[in-house]
Structures are given as structure tokens and as C-alpha cells.
């Protein structure tokens, strides 16, 4: 069994590409089978037929279905993602998305890293004290956190902060522009951090608990293995065993879970951004749903899927690199 990194990488890349093509097709079909005429939804009853026709033409909805499909696929690759219905007249979607995307990437990136680091530490400490009071309280808390929906956390945080820190910013990604532009760079950073604090705190807590539970159970499994006993017999200190022998093995399943977790994070950002009016991709999807802005919704949905697919791809590669048992 030749284990060549390159072969594996290429194979996975081809799979990724095929999946993306499939997703695009799925996305195309999904928005074509919906009941009713999307153009009708957009305009009041009295709109002139010319306006309707013009928009129909602009959106490419007057072409035969197959042509539409080809146009859509080609457009997706050449950067023509269509125009938004509502979001200021006829703005190309690719012009709308970037600032929103940056905010979501910031939120979910920081959130994921924090969740992983804190979750692993949390799980490790619980597993190391298995059966003791710390572990019992710790894992109960983790289970509770794991089963509380993310958006409820956000609501509780808001109530707590309104009560205890009345001046704390609770919506938006920064202060209003008129204030924000007058601040110096440090104040701006502090402002951004202040605004991001609560969203990130609500975003990570569920995945943090999830990671902690997985690390805990996986570490407890590893700690019963024979080689841990051997290490103990060699006279290694407890913490050294944990660091050198147990943790590297216990973290393997975590890598796979991180990839799956990206899906949760994506879903989480939708809720969190909606609650905190944090203008990222999730907030955009809410606006798109509210305004029946189907092209925009389609694009946002596509982006979210791509994020998850790429995360899965990276996890596969990482897993291959870390775990010699993975077959090609």
C-alpha cells in the first residue's frame, strides 16, 4: 500500500471539485422548482409588464431551462453570480458579499480557534480527573451547555449585560461610522473587540462543550490502553504521560469532528449575527429571506456549503497526515 501524499491529495481534490459541481447543480435546481414566479413576488400588482419583462431578462429567467443552467454554471466560475433583487438596484452579488464575508470569517475564525483550544483544555482536565468532583460537575455542565441552543445563550448574555454593564454595545460590528471614523487605531481595535465579544462568546459555547465531551471520552479511552501503563512503569510523571503519550492519540478523532463542527459554526453564525445585528453572511441570509431575494440567498447558501466542503477537505488531508492508519 503505497501511501503517497500527492495521490491522496489529488484524489480528494477531484472529489471536492465534483461535489462542488453537484452542489451547484442542486442549488440551481432548488431555486427553479420553487412554486410561483419569483418576479411576481418582487413587484406590486400594478407593475407594468415591461418592467417585469426587463427584470426577467436581466435575471436570465426568459431563457430555456438548459440554457439557464449553462449560463448559471459558467457564471459561477467566471465571477458573475447574478444580481440581487432588493439590495440596492441591480448590484452584482459579488460586490455585495465581501464586506459581509469578512465579518463572518472573523467571527467564525476566532470562534473556532477559541472553541478548539478551550474545549480541548476543558476535556483534558475533565478526563484527567475522571470520576472526581471536578469531572462530575465539569461534564454535567458540558452536557447542559451542549444541549442549550446557541441563540438562547445569546439572549441570556444580552439580558445579563444589559443588567450588569449597561453601556456595553449589543448590536453591530462596530460603533456607528460617525464615531468609529474619529477613533485612533487602538480605540478602533478595542471597539471591534467589544462588539465581537458577545457574539463570539455565544457562538463558541456549544461547540466548546461538544469538543470537551469528545476529547474527554476519547482521552478516557486512550488512558486505559496498555502503552499508558508502560509509560507509567517507565516512571514517567502523570502530566508527562498525558502530554507525550495520551493527548496526541486522543486528539485524532477531534480532527474529524472539527470539520463536522464547521457546519454547526456556520449555522451558529446565522443565529448569532441575526440576534446581534452583526452584518455578516448569516445576517445577509436573513435579509435575503425577508426580502425574497432569491439570487442573494442562493449565493449565500452556496458560500456556506463551500465553507463546509473546504473544511472537510482540509480535515481529510490533516487526518491523512496525522493518522498513518488512513487508507488511500
Amino acid at each position, binding site marked *: 500500500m503505497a501511501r503517497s501524499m500527492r495521490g491522496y491529495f489529488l484524489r480528494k481534490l477531484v472529489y471536492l471539485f465534483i461535489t462542488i459541481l453537484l*452542489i451547484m447543480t442542486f442549488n440551481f435546481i432548488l431555486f427553479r422548482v420553487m412554486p410561483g414566479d419569483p418576479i411576481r413576488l418582487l413587484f406590486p400588482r400594478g407593475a407594468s409588464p415591461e418592467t417585469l419583462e426587463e427584470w426577467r431578462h436581466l435575471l436570465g429567467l426568459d431563457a430555456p431551462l438548459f440554457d439557464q443552467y449553462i449560463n448559471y454554471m459558467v457564471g459561477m466560475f467566471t465571477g458573475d453570480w447574478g444580481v440581487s433583487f432588493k439590495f440596492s438596484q441591480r448590484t452584482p452579488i459579488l460586490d455585495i458579499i465581501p464586506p459581509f464575508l469578512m465579518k463572518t470569517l472573523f467571527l467564525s475564525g476566532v470562534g473556532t480557534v477559541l472553541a478548539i483550544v478551550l474545549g480541548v483544555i476543558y476535556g483534558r482536565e475533565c478526563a484527567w480527573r475522571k470520576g472526581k468532583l471536578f469531572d462530575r460537575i465539569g461534564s454535567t455542565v458540558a452536557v447542559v451547555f451542549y444541549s442549550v*441552543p446557541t441563540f438562547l445563550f445569546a439572549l441570556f448574555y444580552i439580558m445579563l449585560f444589559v443588567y450588569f454593564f449597561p453601556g456595553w454595545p449589543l448590536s453591530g460590528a462596530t460603533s456607528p461610522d460617525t464615531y468609529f471614523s474619529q477613533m485612533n487605531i487602538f480605540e478602533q481595535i478595542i471597539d471591534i473587540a467589544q462588539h465581537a465579544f458577545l457574539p463570539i462568546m455565544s457562538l463558541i459555547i456549544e461547540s466548546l462543550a461538544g469538543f470537551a465531551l469528545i476529547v474527554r471520552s476519547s482521552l478516557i479511552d486512550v488512558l486505559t490502553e496498555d502503552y499508558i501503563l508502560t509509560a507509567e512503569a517507565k516512571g514517567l510523571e502523570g502530566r508527562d504521560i498525558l502530554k507525550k503519550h495520551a493527548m496526541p492519540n486522543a486528539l485524532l478523532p477531534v480532527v474529524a469532528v472539527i470539520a463536522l463542527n*464547521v457546519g454547526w459554526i456556520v449555522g451558529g453564525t446565522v443565529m448569532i449575527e441575526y440576534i446581534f445585528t452583526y452584518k455578516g453572511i448569516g445576517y445577509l441570509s436573513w435579509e435575503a429571506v425577508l426580502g425574497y431575494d432569491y439570487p442573494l440567498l442562493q449565493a449565500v447558501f452556496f458560500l456556506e456549503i463551500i465553507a463546509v466542503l473546504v473544511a472537510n477537505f482540509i480535515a481529510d488531508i490533516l487526518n491523512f497526515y496525522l493518522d498513518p492508519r488512513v487508507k488511500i
Partner: protein
Amino acid sequence: MAKSVKVDQKKVLIHLLIVAFLFLFIGIGETYNTSLKVSELSLLAGFIMGIAAGLMTAAIISFLSDDASQRKIALVMLIANLVTAIGGSLFFILLASLSGRAVELNTLLSTALILALALYVICILTMVSIVKIVGEQRVRKLAMAIGETRSEKIKLAAKQLNKVWTQFSQNRIGMFAFYVLVIITIIAIIGPSIAPEDPLTPITNPESQLPMPPSEKHWFGTDFESHDVWAQFLYGARTSLIVGLLAGLISLAIGTVVGLVAGYFGRAWDEVLMRLTDFFLVIPWFPLMIVLVAILGRSLWVVIFVIGIVSWSPTARVVRAAVLSIKEKMYIERSRALGASNFHIIQRHIFPNVFPLIVATSILLVAEAIFSEAFLDFFGLGDPNVVSWGWMLERAHDKSAMLNLWWWWILPPSVGIILLIMSFYLVGDTLDEILNPRLKRR
């Protein structure tokens, strides 16, 4: 003598349960803001038709001697019953709607479907009891033969169930979660009948339109438009539970069928179905649900359907893996050598072995479904006419209840959701530990 009394008690219990569930289901219609008379009338009509159909089936069965053809006829008749029941209830609801009330087609279909399902159960019950009553020697013999194997099986199942229950009741956390579930279920069933006010009728309050904190008259206070929060809470329990159970059921059914077919038939089936499963596994659930609900429209049934259709993939994987290992067992080979059909093997040998896995998974699925429903409602994609806990939170968020610290409006639905999800998780987890003992050593 004592034995027969015992059996009777059980029967009474079962009937009571069925009646309770019927009321629960009819309640949907009520919560649905349609007129109660419509559902009552169609229920009555369906009830009569169901019994008539059941009688007919029983009569036809009793005139047939051949075992196989009997079964076929029974099956056909049952399907016919189902169709008649759906059609009949649809017809009667339509008739009722002609008398002045406009009923949406969507509502109509769903109410009819639920009624039909209820009637289906009634048909079967009628049929079975009729078969027992009809005095013909042949039928009695047959019924006894069926009855014996069946009672043997039931005894076995009861024994198994008893064992699981004993183990379950020793788990303190599991039992706590179970009690919470029972309490919430009771609230869901009787809640709307004990609710002091209608959740959607404002209480006239000349002093202010602002939410009022809990008082003697309104236990949980009132919301922005002076609705009673306690009443909304009671109504919401029913919606959350029903959506969770039905969506979980849909998801379980799809997942199980896909897993069984992919695992058992293998090859092309496996390839195609598993790619489909991977596809659904990869797509982030919430965005997909948002997109689907946005496209299909905002109603309770769309929400149930969407949650069900999005969340089946993990079940399919689990079931497929189990089927793959069971398929290789010797007794499957023997059964096939004896000429058993694929359907028979799946039904008799594979499904019962996969079943324990499914039970635990399904309970976890229900928890997921409740979570999803709360989220969709909160996001403003739920049915605007159905009171649910997510709907309460959405309205609270809309009116900035958090910023104004109207905690009595936010806490009840939040605590309800958390308790419901957590107890489903814990019960599922405990059952998983008992039924799939590989996990025990942890």
C-alpha cells in the same frame, strides 16, 4: 380469572392512550386556527367510515381460507381503508368549509392525513376484534394460531422491555430526564384545556400596552400586546413536542429505509444512496432548512417536513453499518437458502436486529428536531399562526424584550426548550448505553 382481568386493564390503557393521542392530534387543528367544528365533523365521519371499512375487511377475511391470499386481501383492504379515510375526511372537511369558512388547502390536507392515520388505527382495532368475534370454526382456529405465536412474541418483547426498563430506572439522570419528559408531555396534552386565556386574544388592559410582570392573575406576566405568557407557554409545549416527534419520525423513516436498502442490496444502490447521504451530511443543516422553508412557504407542516428531510443522513449511516455486519451472519444465509425473499429477510431478520440502534438514535433525532424547530421559529420562518416556544422568543426578540429586561417573557419558553431538548438527549443517551452495550466501559 385474574389473568383475564389483567389483560383487560392493559386493553383499557391502550385505548385510553389512543384516545389521548387522537386528542393531541386534533389539537393541531385547533392550534392551527381553523374552526374546531371542521375537525370534529370530519373525525366523526371518518370514524364511522373507518369502522364500516374495518367491518367489511373482517367479513371478507372470514370468508377466505387460504392463508396467503387472506393476508394479501387484508393488506389491500387496509390500504383501501387508508385511501377512503383520507378521501372521506377531505370530502367532509371540504363540505364543512363550504358552509362559510375558508380553509386553506394545506390545512385541509394535513388535517385529513392525521385523521386518516387515526382512523387507520381504529380500522385495525375493529378488524382484529371482529375476527375474534366471528364464530366460524375456521376463523377461530386461524385466529388462535396467530394469537398463540403473537402472544408468545408479545411475551418475549415484554420481557425484553422489562429488562431495559429495570436498567433504565437504575440510571438516576436518565430517570430524571424521563420524568421531565412525562411532565412536558402531560402539559402538551392537557395544556390548552387548562390555559386561562386564549394565547392570541389580548387581555384588555386599559392601563398600559407594555408587558406586565408576573402577577396573581397572570402567573407568567403578559407580553407586549397583553397576551398571557402562561397560556402561550402551555400552547407552545404542544407545538414543540409534535413538531419534534413528527419530524423525528420522518427523518427516522427516511434514514432507516435508505440505510437498509443501501446496506442490504449493496453495489449500485449502496453507491448512489451513500453519495446522497454524504451530500446531506456535508450540507450545513440550518442554511439548508432556511432555504427550503423560504422556498416552500411558512407553515407548520413545511417546517416538519423540512426538518425531517434534512436530518436523516446520520441515521442512514448508522443503519447501513449495522446492516452490513448483520448481513454476513450465517442465519441470513440459511434463511436465503430456504427460499426467503429479500423483503422477508429484511423484515424478519435484519430490521429487528437494527431496531435497538434505531430507538436510541430516534430519540436523539427528536431532540435535534425540537432544536431546529425552535431555531426556525426564532428566525422568523415558523408558522406565524401557530403558538410555539420559538415563536414566543421571536416576538420577544422583535420587541427587544432582552434590552428591556422583560425576563418573564423570555424565561418560560427558553427554559421549556432547554428542558425538552436536554431530557430527550439524556433519555436517548441512557437508552443507547443500555441497548448498545459496547459503550458501557466508558
